């Protein structure tokens, strides 16, 4: 039950991953759906609270690249619109 793990203050700053700007740093707040995709993201180290950078977006609204620790990975925007993040100031 990931979505209930966040307190109310944080919830206000939560935005969908797909709206994050290139070059921004953010932390994973919640995965609103729990499926193989989000499970794999967590296995690779993108767990709740993990900070990452949105490095770049592929042309024509293609995949987006995230970087955290020594991992760099790309995900499709259509698949990741259920992931909520909190930008790190």
């Amino acid at each position: 039950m990931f979505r209930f793990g966040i307190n109310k203050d944080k919830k206000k700053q939560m935005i969908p991953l797909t709206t994050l700007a290139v070059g921004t740093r953010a932390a994973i707040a919640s995965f609103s759906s729990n499926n193989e995709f989000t499970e794999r993201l967590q296995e690779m180290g993108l767990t709740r609270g993990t900070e990452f950078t949105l490095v770049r977006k592929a042309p024509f609204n293609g995949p987006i690249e995230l970087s955290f620790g020594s991992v760099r990975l790309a995900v499709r925007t259509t698949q990741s619109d259920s992931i909520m993040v909190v930008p790190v100031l």
Partner: protein
Amino acid sequence: MHDSIHPHHITFVGTPNCGKTTLFNALTGLHQKVGNFPGITVEPVIGKIQIQHSTVHLIDLPGIYSFLPKSVDEQLSVDIIHNKISDLPKTEYIVAVLDGSSLEKSLFLFSFIAELGLPTIAVLTMVDEIKARNGILDDITLETILGVPVIPVVGKKGIGLQDLRDSLHQTDKFLVPNTIVQASANIEQRHTAVREIISQVLTIREDKITEKLDSFILHPIGGPVIFLIVLGLFFQSIFTWAEPLMSGIESLFSYTQDYLRSTLPDSLLRDFITDGVIAGVGSVIVFLPQIILLNIIIVFLEDCGYLSRAAFLIDRIMGIFGLQGRSFIPLLGSYACAIPGIMSARIIPSEKDRMATIMIAPLMTCSARLPVYTLLIAACIPSIIVGGIFSLQAIVLAGLYFLAAISGLCIALVFKKTLFRGATLPFLLEFPPYRVPSLPSLLIIVWNRSKEFIKNAGSIILLFSIILWALTEFPKAEIPTGMTSLQAERIQLEQSYAGTIGKTLQPIFQPLGFDWKLTIGVIGSFAAREVFVSVMGQLYSADVSDSDAQLRTILQQTIPFATAISVMLFYVYALQCISTIAIIKKETGSWKWSMIAFAYTFMLAYSTALIGYNLVKLI
């Protein structure tokens, strides 16, 4: 020192891109056997090493992230570890390959390995990368925490390999790991535990080199430009480099045929050897240059880290057709030849995307269609210039290529919406750090794949070739004396089973405007499409000479324009290639998919040719 008397089995487990295969290849060299699992893309490999006087069997499994599989390939690895595959030896000892440059993922997987409670050794790879990034890894502390020996190696340079070899045959060096996470820990808890370990043993800087290279290679404008250059080189090299080798192989085989024909006594056995067996073996070997070259390029691009970046750039466009970025490589490869193209679909991790890619690969215009197109275009399309600079013949040729590509992609979409609905594996591309590939390891992988092609697909292709030879050779026709050899060939072909089949099937092809000669040509093409040209030569120019220019003139006079268009449209779609049918069976693990591919391409070819024929006749 304790030497085991019986060969023991050691299973290598690690994450994707952790350097496991390079290490495995450095240890075993060519002493390995690729496990054959139908429908599985990645190959579990069993290797043997001889250390002093004992033999040790090593098993290399496809990379995994956890023991929670997300694809059939990962399922296979996990099943082998858990002894669920009966024809493989039981998991006894484990070598856990830990990627030092990406330790969190590796230790996360190790948290699952530790729960097996089996004797284990940890091998630490990419220690040179840690150094290059000014990092320090305390392997002694790591050893204490994990409770197993930790052996640092650099697989490419052979550093640490001797230490590892020495340990592999001493079973008492393998230790049962410490418990590093509590029982039934979830993913988050495992990561927390792993991060705690890393904070004690590793300090490392960010990988600035990869970051810098990515800013060029994935640049919004520069990236696509580099991508197009790489694709151009890729395309060019399979066409131009493989071509001389292929014609060399062809002439070698035809020289052998001629030599045997002139030395052996005239008999059925001689014809069977020269035209059946040698021609059949030749038709297998002729694919090798393209298979080897395509695999060298693909393994190189994969190992240096470019392939997943290219997939990132092209993913959006392939996504429109229900495919993914990686589908691009097999489809492009299929323009040279569908055989290596379909084999290279293994780089697509998602099973359904891979299947859809394989099913449309035969529609990509392979080089075997080119002789058919050029013959018919030269014969039937007027050589005029339109729009000032464009040759009409060239426009028609380009049109045929374009038609095939766009139809193929649209059909991929249909397949993805029906038979291969949804994605079994969530789309997720990992960018490994840029690395210089290990050449020996690359060559071993290419060697294994070529061997596998000859063993599995080669035998089916050989069998089919011999059957096709028999169909054209029997029953033996009465050849009147005083005939030229070409006239004799024509009579034989007409009266053979193939000729009979052609004439019997003629009513089916009648609506497309084919006469019985064209029908035989189309059926003969199943051996290989370019056979069409030689069959046409035998059937049409039997009364004159067999020179190409004259064949064109004869075709021009005898084949109506509408029929020529109809034949070309038929060749755009029809899967007339027994080798492709064989490779689809091999790669999907079932004749079912070969048959489906054959049936749908035939229906498409037939209906398009029918429509084209009647449209042209109306105009």
